[in-house]
């Protein structure tokens, strides 16, 4: 369960207009929500706070009852490694690893053995329709294919929380809907919490709920 309680975050002087104001949110496993908002509305800041990459000025973030603010950077990093998966707009696959190795990366980082992580990643790649491309390198893939590999990487280690930051920003419409469907399907099937950050209403439509971030305040749409 992910709980955000009264989050405040501002970047420069305390007197400046805060980026986030009194954000409260509670998500249960299986929840799949979209956060929409203009550029600069604070979507990325919100994602970084949830991921434990930044800390709020005030308020609490609880993941399965664990308060991120009480952890040090290394502990938050470990938590991120075990419990979270990320999908980025630019895919961010390692160009020098094969599709299979990229997908298995999160498993390997969590200490799963080489053989097992390869098997599990291969299975997952089969599920996203890439079983034919296991040994290709990312540079040879299309955008849609790359993002599907990234989804496999994000989900392979069964994270409780999947954060997708504009996953369709670099994709054409066809690939985009494919990727959105896949993401939703994978998150739902694993009973994870999914948060999809986007400025595209079409993408947001794939979520259960849509929250709009405006003037630092998060409201249901």
């Amino acid at each position, binding site marked *: 369960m992910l709980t955000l309680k009264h989050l405040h975050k501002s970047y420069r002087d305390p007197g400046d207009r805060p980026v986030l104001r009194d954000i409260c949110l509670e998500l249960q496993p299986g929840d799949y929500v979209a956060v929409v908002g203009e550029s600069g509305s604070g979507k990325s800041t919100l994602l970084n706070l949830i991921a434990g990459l930044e800390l709020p000025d005030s308020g609490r973030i609880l993941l399965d009852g664990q308060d991120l603010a009480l952890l040090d950077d290394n502990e938050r*990093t470990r938590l*991120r490694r075990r419990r979270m998966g*990320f999908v980025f707009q630019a895919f*961010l696959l*390692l160009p020098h690893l094969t599709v299979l190795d990229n997908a298995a990366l999160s498993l*390997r*980082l969590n200490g799963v053995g080489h053989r097992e992580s390869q098997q599990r990643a291969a299975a997952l790649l089969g599920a996203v329709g890439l079983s034919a491309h296991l040994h290709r390198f990312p540079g040879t893939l299309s955008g849609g294919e790359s993002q599907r590999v990234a989804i496999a990487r994000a989900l392979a280690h069964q994270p409780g929380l999947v954060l997708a*930051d504009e996953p369709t920003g*670099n994709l054409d419409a066809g690939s985009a809907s494919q990727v959105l469907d896949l993401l939703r399907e994978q998150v739902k099937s694993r009973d994870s919490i999914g948060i999809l950050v986007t400025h595209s209403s079409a993408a947001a439509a794939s979520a259960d709920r849509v929250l709009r971030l405006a003037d630092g305040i998060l409201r249901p749409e």
Partner: protein
Amino acid sequence: MIRALWQALVGSSLRAQPGRTLLATLAIAAGIALGYSVHLLNASADAEFRRAALQLSGEAELLVRGPRQGFDEQLYPQIATLDGIAIASPVLEFQASRDAGNAPLRIIGIDALRARELQPALVAGQSLPAAGLFEPDSIILSAAAARSHGVAAGDLLDFRAGTVTVALRVAAVLPDGSYRQPLGIMDIAAAQWRFGMTGVLHRIDIRLDGEVAAAAVQKSISALLPEGVELLTPEAENLRSAALTRAYRTNLDMLALIALFTGAFLVYSTQTLSMLRRRSQVALMRALGAPRGTVLGVLLAEGTLIGAAGAVIGIAGGFVLARQLLASVGMDLGAGYFRNLQAALHPEPAAALFFLLLGPLFALGGTLAPAIEIAGMPAARGLRAGDPDERVSAFPALAGVAAIGSAAMLLWAAPSTGLPLHGHAAIALLLAGATLAFPPAAIRLLKLARLPLPLPHALSLARLLATPRLTAIGMSSILVSFSLVVSMLLMIHSFRTSLDAWLDQVLPADIYVRAGGGGETAFLSGREQQRIASIPQLLRVEFLRSRSLLLLPGRPPVTLIARDPGVDGFSRSLPLVGAPAAPGADGPPAVWISELVADVLALQPGDPIRLPLGMQPQIFAVGGIWRDYARQNGAVVMDLADYRRITGDQTVNDVAAWLAPDARVTEISGLIRAAADDGSALEITATADLRRLSLDIFDRSFAVTWALQAAALCIGLLGVWLAFNAQALSRRREFGMLRHLGLTRREISVMLGVEGALGAAIGAACGMVAGGLIGLILIRVINRQSFHWSMDLAVPWLPLAALFTGIILCAAVAACAGAAMATRQEMTRAVREDW
């Protein structure tokens, strides 16, 4: 258009990364400064040699030159009266010994009346009162000689002739400009008389009258010359006096080029990385309609400018460095070759210009390939994010293999004498070939090895293996610098080990006694020898007579060493190379020649050899070939008994003595001094001291190479730093993603360190192989041909292992430091950057 392009491609890069541009500039500057300073010192020493030789030969058109013990003076009137001779000027020339502890002084005895026609700068003018030159106890000193012997006009200066003291009055000191090296000038009659050389000349300087063809005059002179006396032109004489240090100077010049070469590689890698980093900007400019040629021109102009800036800094720095080196270690960089050479820097505009041009040239060369590549790249591909093109071309590797092949061919076809230029060319080819061919091969090997590394280090390995080109570029500076260091280490270690063993063999006695402190005029008489031999505390005494022979045409005289063969004969007491000749029953007496003599005359054990000794040349048989690290111009050893029988000369220069078990060196020294007519003239050294002295000299002569090696390694590490620094920006998103995926900052740093270490290991391993090969060339070809010294290969395993480890650790640190900017706080934001 060009302005806009310049701003977009160069200006922005310069503003964003001023440090990197500065570093590239400094890398070129460092290479050029090192190269230029070494060359400058070297060229200045050379200029001093030439100047000194030219001043001495003056306006002479021909020289007749004999060995150190000279030739019969009757040759002088014979030559002077030949048709076509305008002036013949007789010269006596020798190193006059002084007391132990004082350096000998080179003295020329001249007939001032003849010499002033040929050497006006030395003899004529108000500076030199002709009167002084006819006084039998007068000597005129050059300013340098007066300085180094601490005397002024009017003072007395003591010399040794045999064991007799010759006191000469300093009649005058020449002004600084007339002759810069230490030199004493005497009247020829006085010099003959006072130094016991009546009837003998060393040189006749000749000017032709121009009425008879020069060739005809040369022919008629040559017909008069006895064996061992040569007719030379001043140019040939000049070359010969330079030949003594030519090999050493060539090697120094090569060191300078090596410094430049390392710098060039650094420039190449920096420029390549800098180009690749900017490929998207270039693609954007191309997409906006900038023609390819213009883009290329702008990029090349940037490289040239960086090179030019570096070159200017480098020339200035090189000059300052040379001046510092000259002041602190001397013109020979501490090697002791030009110990008595007085010198100042002679910067020649041509050389400075050459080195000045090398900067932009290297930078242009380094920029050319990557600039052509990115300027010609389709815009669409350049605009796409990700690493630069890694499609591996087989061409560089093939070119590398070809270069290595030609190096091998060069060595195989190498002549065995003369300057080892082909050896140096082979080294350059090998180095270039290794840089091109070795990293791809190493990476291929590493791929096959499937090294089982844990995460995240496996990522480092994967990246290295997947980007062979970037890896090769990043590591080329390590490869080059490490291979040079390894080769020098290998050569120096082999040399020192061989020298150590050699000293053991050539210094078997307990103490060594030398008449006078060096020079050619001091010796021990037969009576003194008997007195020394009968000292009861000496178990055994061996005597040695050394003098010079003009044996090898066009080369300085070789040293003839006549000594007792020792208890087991020369085949045991000399450090032989190869087997000695089977002793013949009633053949000619044997002499034992050093490697140089064997090389130049192409002699094998058992071959006959003619030595210009005594009244007429004598035939000897080569008993064997021995290794001589002490005399660079070659040496011939013969039995003292044979020598005395042939020449009747009973004197000796050196004594080797074995002490009774309870005898103390100080006590024995006193006894030996008492046995000589004038004991203060003897230089007595214990073997341990002699050994230490020799090894000290060796170490000192290589001291500067350590500095060069350290500089090379620093440049190599700087290359690693630059490589990681250059990639850091483009890898920030990768690091951000890994941070998201749960890697701590520390783990990322360690990953980078491992990446640097792995890369350095590849580079250093390649460098080790290349360096080993270069070291072999240095040992077997360069040294053999420069100095005619063979040495046994000895690998300094421990220092090599330590250096290997050290360079890897340093590279790891350099990699982390290079990428530090990218691993700082902000990298998580990089995942959203899209450019």
